[in-house]
């Protein structure tokens, strides 16, 4: 069967403030600019999940879309939509909630939940893209697990999740 990439796009809205205790107030303002506003601000984020694999021979689908949508709702959308990421998302207790770091956190959550939800599926979670605005887009790829290892386990830590970001 041919190998295809299926990408599904979702949206959520959340607040953040970019600030780090490692820098002084003045340095924070210099580094983060408007994003350092002490009251925070928010975005309508768009997130794309890309899956790679050979479609099921009987259904012609890589995954049932309803199952993928439910997965995205539970793992990505419900925890983040209408939340203040600095205050309500534990991952950002000691991590600046830049969209780069948000991509890392989401990719890690998706990669670790994927094999639980989609055990035996021909599809593997390949990459995640996130739009902070229509002009700032970030992408994380999750390398395929080596032969014999289960794909997308918690062992996908920062050093083996490759990040690239683009500011357009």
């Amino acid at each position, binding site marked *: 069967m041919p190998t295809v990439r299926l*990408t599904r*796009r979702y949206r959520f809205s959340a607040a953040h403030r970019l600030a780090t205790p490692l820098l002084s107030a003045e340095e924070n303002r210099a580094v983060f600019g408007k994003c350092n506003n002490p009251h925070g601000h928010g975005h309508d984020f768009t997130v794309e999940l890309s899956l790679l694999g050979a479609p099921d021979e009987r259904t012609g689908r890589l995954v049932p879309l309803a199952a993928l949508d439910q997965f995205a709702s539970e793992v990505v959308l419900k925890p983040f939509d209408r939340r203040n990421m600095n205050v309500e998302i534990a991952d950002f207790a000691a991590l600046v909630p830049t969209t780069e770091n948000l991509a890392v956190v989401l990719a890690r959550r998706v990669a670790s939940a994927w094999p639980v939800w989609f055990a035996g599926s021909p599809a593997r979670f390949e990459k995640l893209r996130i739009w902070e605005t229509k002009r700032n887009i970030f992408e994380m790829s999750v390398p395929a697990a080596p032969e014999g290892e289960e794909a997308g386990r918690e062992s996908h830590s920062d050093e083996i999740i490759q990040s690239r970001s683009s500011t357009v």
Partner: protein
Amino acid sequence: MLLTRKIEFSASHTCWNPALSEAENQAAYGADANRHGHGHNYSLEVTLEGEPDAVTGMVVDLKAVKAILEREVMEPMDHRHLNLEVPPFDRVVPTTENLAVEIWRRLEGQFGAGPAKLRAVRLYETEDLFVEYEGR
């Protein structure tokens, strides 16, 4: 260098496999399993790879590319019912995945001898769902 040409076409389909039970069809396709069919405005991006010609500065004659896409995709698929009018979807379920692969198969030979090789097709079924196929 990569070059992408985009076209849009509208078609109806139903995702229903007679070899599966009603419950299996519902689980696999959800609302798409409505046997009366429904439609989409598909958007197709065809990506070609080649080097610009030293004289013309062009990778490929885009008029020729347009004609190929018109003949191989628009004419047979636009405003058609995929299951009823576009083989092999009389026996293959026209999911986005299968349609992307079928479009690749129709286009691949058209670019075989030309200056630009077919590199990828990206088929949007909706703004929020697309499938890419690179012939692998």
